[in-house]
């Protein structure tokens, strides 16, 4: 399948990419890893007249950490999965090592994923749960935007015309913190049927100090499950509280029946994922090594 013909522009820097896009207008798009845009263009669901290629801009793919972990927008999912940061912050590994399949993870970028704001994307719930910030650059200069204010709706972000994502900044989790991200998929290359991200801090081995719980896929954007957070916050983690978390996530889910399953099935799946994610997050906060990955069914 051939995309509609387009004119190619290779940017050598972000400022050049931004001025190119400003000149070319609405018929132009940035190309990051292309793992969503290229399939859309092949299906002619997207047919830009110009592509501004970000792949050859130096210093855009990096992982740096001191007080925060910072990911260059063009950092590929596979590079994040293999990083020391992913080894230290397990929720990062859960997400980056489970997106699609190895081939897609070698090309797809964190910045592209965040800018696309696909409701089935893996990064949004994880970045929301960890309280990440999106750094952008556009004709109006640099901005730092809380991820919760960056993703506005399905496929809609706070990005202005010709503005692009330059970096994702993630605060390093406090002591006695743990997180987990679980997604249920039919197989690797497809979109998830449901996903849940949990990031929590324990007061001691039994009592949760604070928690963030986000449900992915089953809404227009990742959804914060505040009832589940309240169930966990400042209370001992018990089988009863886990059951309440499961119920809260099931209550807030707004699944649509489609080829991935019935609404009831997805609701059940979301509840089960939430329970597994909290269990893994608590164990990790206690310092236990727990492997969590995308589940296939």
């Amino acid at each position, binding site marked *: *399948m*051939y*995309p*509609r*013909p*387009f*004119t*190619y522009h*290779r940017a050598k820097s972000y400022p050049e990419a931004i001025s190119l896009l400003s000149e070319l207008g609405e018929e132009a798009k940035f*190309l990051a890893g*292309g*793992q969503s845009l*290229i*399939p859309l*263009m*092949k*299906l002619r669901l997207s047919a830009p007249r110009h*592509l501004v*290629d970000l*792949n*050859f801009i130096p210093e855009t793919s990096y992982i740096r950490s001191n007080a925060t972990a910072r990911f260059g927008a063009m950092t590929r999912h*596979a590079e994040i999965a293999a990083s020391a940061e992913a080894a230290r912050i397990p929720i990062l590994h859960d997400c980056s090592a489970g997106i*699609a*399949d*190895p*081939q*897609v993870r*070698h*090309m797809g970028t964190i910045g592209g994923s965040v800018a696309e704001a696909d409701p089935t994307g893996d990064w949004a719930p994880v970045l929301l749960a960890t309280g990440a910030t999106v750094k952008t650059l556009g004709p109006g200069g640099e901005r730092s935007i809380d991820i919760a204010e960056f993703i506005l709706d399905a496929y809609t972000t706070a990005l202005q015309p010709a503005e692009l994502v330059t970096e994702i900044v993630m605060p390093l989790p406090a002591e006695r913190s743990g997180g987990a991200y679980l997604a249920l998929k039919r*197989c*690797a*290359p*497809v979109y998830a049927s449901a996903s849940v991200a949990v990031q929590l801090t324990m007061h001691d081995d039994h009592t949760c100090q604070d928690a963030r719980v986000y449900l992915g896929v089953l809404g227009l954007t990742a959804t914060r499950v505040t009832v589940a957070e309240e169930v966990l916050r400042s209370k001992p983690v018990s089988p009863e509280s886990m059951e309440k978390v499961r119920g809260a996530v099931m209550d807030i889910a707004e699944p649509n029946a489609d080829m991935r399953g019935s609404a009831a099935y997805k609701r059940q799946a979301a509840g089960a994922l939430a329970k597994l994610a909290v269990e893994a997050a608590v164990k990790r906060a206690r310092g236990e090594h727990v492997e969590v*990955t995308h589940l296939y069914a």
Partner: protein
Amino acid sequence: MPEKIPRVRLSAMVNGKQYAREVEPRTLLVQLLREELNLTGTHIGCDTSYCGACTVLLNGRSVKSCTLFAFQADGGEVLTVEGLARDGQLHPVQQAFSDCHGFQCGYCTPGFLMSTVQLLEEHPHPTESDIRKGIAGNTCRCTGYQNIFKAIYAAAAAGEGADIGH
């Protein structure tokens, strides 16, 4: 009249040989390989980034060549299934797939070979879970995967997985 679109000039090292071409911007990497370079070993399967039949290595990393524009490989190194054999000798991964009959119709095989080469680079002694994750982006509708697993274990046992013939 359609407007005239400037072609993109690109060069890449493909299976150890340097090529330079001028292509339409919308040319996909798989089309460059098959139609411009006559390397038809890389197959187009689903053409939607699902099946992995078109898998090649770009700069040592597996990618789906139907989901990359040719210009994304500019200045890079590409390894296709044609680049695996050396001096008339099958690559150990190819030999293992042949010995274990890790295919039936063979259509998906080039993609599985490339993903296996990548997998064994990262995991020279893969566990079953490593193999499942490593070939998760490749689909075979014939074998039921049993013999593909056997072939991958056999290739790992041959101990040559790390030599991908660059």
